[in-house]
C-alpha cells in the first residue's frame, strides 16, 4: 500500500521514501524519508496516529474510572498508565501524600512492570540484533534464532517476564485490568503469603539481570565504535529524578540536561510541566512534538527513557546498578552517552535496579500495612507523571463539578521521543540508502534504529505485530522508482 500525503506535498527537489506498515486498524506507523537531489535524506518522518483519539474517548468519564480505563492505552505497559492516572487522581482527591503502604505497593508494582517490559525488549526484540549482528540472516534476528544459538538466554527472558507479571498480579490484584491503585492509595495490601511467594525467586532474578548486563557489555565492547556510532544523535535528555538526584521512576521532579550534560532545568515540580515543556505540531503528523520551551522547537527536542534516565541521574540507590551506571557513564567521557544503541545497555542497568529494588521492598513490613488511603478536598486538576519503561509519561486531567473528565492531555513516552526517533532514522537512512536502489540492508537498519526506542506504534491493539513493512522510493513529483515489501515471514519482495 502506498500513500501520498494529500495535506503536505514533499518539498521541491526532494524524493520521498515511504516505509509503511500495512495494517487493519488505525494507530499504525509509517516512515517517510525525504531525499534531495544529492541523494541525501533531509528529513525522516515517523507517522503515528494513535493518542489524540484516546483523550477524546475518556472525556465525560468519572475520574475514579481513570486508573482502570487508561490501561487499555497500551497492551505492553498498562501498569504505567494505571499508575500515572492513579497519581493524577491522587491530586484530584486532594491526597497530597500517600500512606507508606500505598506508596510502597505502587512502587513494587511499577518495578515489576518495568522489569518485565525491559526483559521483553532485551530478550525478545533487541538482543538478537546485538548477538548476531545486523547483517546476519533475518531469521536470526528474532527470538527463535536466538534460542537456537543461545537457548539459556531466551529461557531467562521468558522467566524474567513471568516474574514481573507475577509481581503485577500480586500487587494489582489481577493479571490484566488491575485495580490495585485507586485515587488516594491502593485497595489492598500484601499478605505474608504473597510476599513469601515473590521472595522465593528474587535472588535468581537478580542473578539473571547481572548476567544480562555482562552479556550486553561483552557485545557492546566487541564492536564498540560501531555500537557507539550507529544512529547516534546529540540530544537533550529529560527524566524524573529523586529530590537528591537519585534514579527514580515512580515519583520525583523533572530534570533536563543538554547534549553537553549541562543543566537546562532541575527539580521542577511535574505539576508545572507545561511551564517548561510545550507540544509542537507539524502538518504532516497527528502526533505532537514536545520541546523544552526555553530552547524552542528547533533545538529543544529531547530524548526520554532508559538512556536519558541513566545519563541524568546522579546515582542509583541500589549498589549493583550503581556500579554498572558508573561504568556506563564513563564511556561518555564527561558528556552524556548519546549512542542510540546504548538504550539497550541502559535498559538492562534499569532491569538490574528493579530487581534489587523489588528485593529490598519485599523485606519492608509496610507492604502488609493496613493504612491504605488518604483523601483531602476534591480538586479540579490532576497531573500524574511517572517514568514508564520507554520514558516519561504525563497524564493531565481536568474535571467538572460533576466529577467528569472535561479535558485530558496525555504525553506518552513515544511522543516525547518523537523528534529523536526521526533524527535517528534520518541518520541511518543517510548511511544506508544508496542512490535509487532500496535494499534489504536499509530496511533492516531502519528497523534496528526503531527497535532501540521501541515506540508504541501499536498502542492498544495486538494485531500490529503482524504488519509487514513496505518501503517506497518516490522522486520529487511522487513517481514510484522502487518498492520493497517485507512480509511477516521475513520474505522481501521487490514490487516496482
Amino acid at each position: 500500500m502506498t500513500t501520498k500525503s494529500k495535506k503536505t506535498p514533499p518539498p521541491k527537489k526532494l524524493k520521498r521514501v515511504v516505509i509503511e506498515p500495512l495494517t487493519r486498524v488505525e494507530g499504525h506507523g509509517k516512515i517517510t524519508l525525504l531525499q534531495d537531489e544529492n541523494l541525501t535524506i533531509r528529513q525522516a518522518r515517523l507517522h503515528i496516529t494513535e493518542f489524540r483519539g484516546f483523550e477524546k474517548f475518556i472525556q465525560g468519564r468519572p475520574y475514579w474510572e481513570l486508573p482502570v480505563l487508561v490501561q487499555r492505552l497500551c497492551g505492553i505497559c498498562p501498569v504505567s498508565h494505571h499508575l500515572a492516572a492513579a497519581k493524577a487522581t491522587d491530586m484530584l482527591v486532594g491526597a497530597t501524600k500517600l500512606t507508606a503502604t500505598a506508596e510502597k505497593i505502587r512502587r513494587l508494582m511499577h518495578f515489576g512492570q518495568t522489569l518485565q517490559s525491559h526483559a521483553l525488549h532485551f530478550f525478545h526484540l533487541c538482543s538478537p540484533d546485538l548477538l548476531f549482528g545486523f547483517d546476519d540472516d533475518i531469521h536470526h534476528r528474532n527470538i527463535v534464532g536466538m534460542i537456537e544459538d543461545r537457548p539459556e538466554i531466551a529461557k531467562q527472558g521468558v522467566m524474567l517476564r513471568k516474574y514481573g507479571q507475577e509481581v503485577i498480579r500480586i500487587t494489582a490484584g489481577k493479571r490484566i485490568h488491575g485495580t490495585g491503585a485507586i485515587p488516594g492509595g491502593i485497595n489492598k495490601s500484601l499478605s505474608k503469603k504473597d510476599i513469601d511467594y515473590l521472595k522465593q525467586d528474587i535472588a535468581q532474578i537478580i542473578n539473571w539481570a547481572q548476567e544480562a548486563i555482562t552479556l550486553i557489555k561483552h557485545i557492546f565492547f566487541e564492536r564498540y565504535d560501531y555500537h557507539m556510532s550507529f544512529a547516534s544523535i546529540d540530544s537533550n535528555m529529560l527524566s524524573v529524578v529523586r529530590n537528591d538526584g537519585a534514579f527514580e521512576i515512580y515519583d520525583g521532579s523533572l530534570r533536563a540536561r543538554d547534549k553537553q550534560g549541562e543543566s537546562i532545568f532541575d527539580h521542577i515540580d511535574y505539576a508545572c510541566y507545561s511551564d517548561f515543556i510545550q507540544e509542537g505540531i507539524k502538518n504532516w503528523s497527528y502526533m505532537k512534538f514536545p520541546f523544552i520551551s526555553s530552547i524552542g522547537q528547533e533545538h529543544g527536542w529531547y530524548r526520554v527513557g532508559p538512556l536519558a534516565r541513566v545519563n541524568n541521574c546522579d546515582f542509583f540507590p541500589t549498589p549493583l546498578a550503581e556500579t554498572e551506571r558508573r561504568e556506563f557513564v564513563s564511556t561518555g567521557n564527561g558528556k552524556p552517552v548519546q549512542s542510540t544503541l546504548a538504550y539497550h545497555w541502559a535498559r538492562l542497568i534499569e532491569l538490574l535496579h528493579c530487581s534489587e529494588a523489588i528485593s529490598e521492598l519485599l523485606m519492608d513490613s509496610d507492604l502488609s500495612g493496613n493504612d491504605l488511603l488518604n483523601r483531602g478536598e476534591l480538586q479540579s486538576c490532576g497531573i500524574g507523571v511517572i517514568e514508564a519503561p520507554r520514558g516519561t509519561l504525563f497524564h493531565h486531567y481536568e474535571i467538572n463539578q460533576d466529577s467528569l473528565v472535561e479535558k485530558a492531555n496525555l504525553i506518552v513516552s513515544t511522543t516525547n521521543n518523537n523528534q529523536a526517533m526521526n533524527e535517528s532514522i534520518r541518520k541511518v537512512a543517510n548511511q544506508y540508502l544508496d542512490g535509487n536502489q532500496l535494499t534489504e540492508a536499509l530496511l533492516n537498519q531502519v528497523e534496528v534504529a526503531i527497535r532501540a526506542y521501541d515506540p508504541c506504534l501499536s498502542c492498544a491493539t495486538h494485531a500490529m505485530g503482524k504488519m509487514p513493512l513496505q518501503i517506497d522510493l518516490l522522486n520529487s513529483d511522487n513517481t514510484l522508482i522502487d518498492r520493497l515489501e517485507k512480509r511477516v515471514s521475513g520474505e522481501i519482495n521487490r514490487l516496482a
Partner: protein
Amino acid sequence: MKSTGLHNTKHAPILVFTYGNPSRGDDALGPAMFDLLEVCKQQTTELDHVDLLTDYQLQIEHALDLEQRQCVLFIDSSASANPPFEFHQLQAEQDIGYTTHAMSPSAVLSVYQQIRKTAPPPAYMLSIRGNEFGLSENLSSQANRHLQQSYRFVRDLLATGIMSEGFIFGQITP
C-alpha cells in the same frame, strides 16, 4: 526459578486463550468471548475441564501457559476472516517483527517448543470476523452476531470433549 507460577501449577487439560483490546471496537471479540465462557463456566459444569485466560495481546511468557495442556484454543478477532468465523489448526512458526507489541499464536507455540524442547500441545485458532476497530467499547452489530455464532460453536466444541480427543479439524467453515 522454582516457584512463581512457573512450575508445579495444576492446569486443566484444555486452555482457551482469548485476546484483544476491549476499547478498540471489534478488537474486543476475544475478551467478549472470554466473558461469555466465564459465565458459562461459573453457571455450569460443562467447562470444568477448561481453563480460561485473556490478555490484550500475546507475548513470550504465554508460552508457559501452554504447559500440561492437551489442547489449546486461541480466539481473536479478525478483519479478514470469512464471516462469521474461521477455524483452523495452528503450527509453530516464528514471527519477524520490529516491535515488542505483539506475537502471533504460532509464534507463542514456537517459543514453547524452543524453551521446553518438546512439541507444543495441539493448538487451534478461532478467528471471529470483526469490522470496526476504532476506539469504542461496543461491538458492531455484525460482530455481535458473529460472536453469538462463534460462542455456540465453541461451547459445542468444548462440551463434546472433541478437542481433548485429538480431533483434527483442518479448515472449518460454519
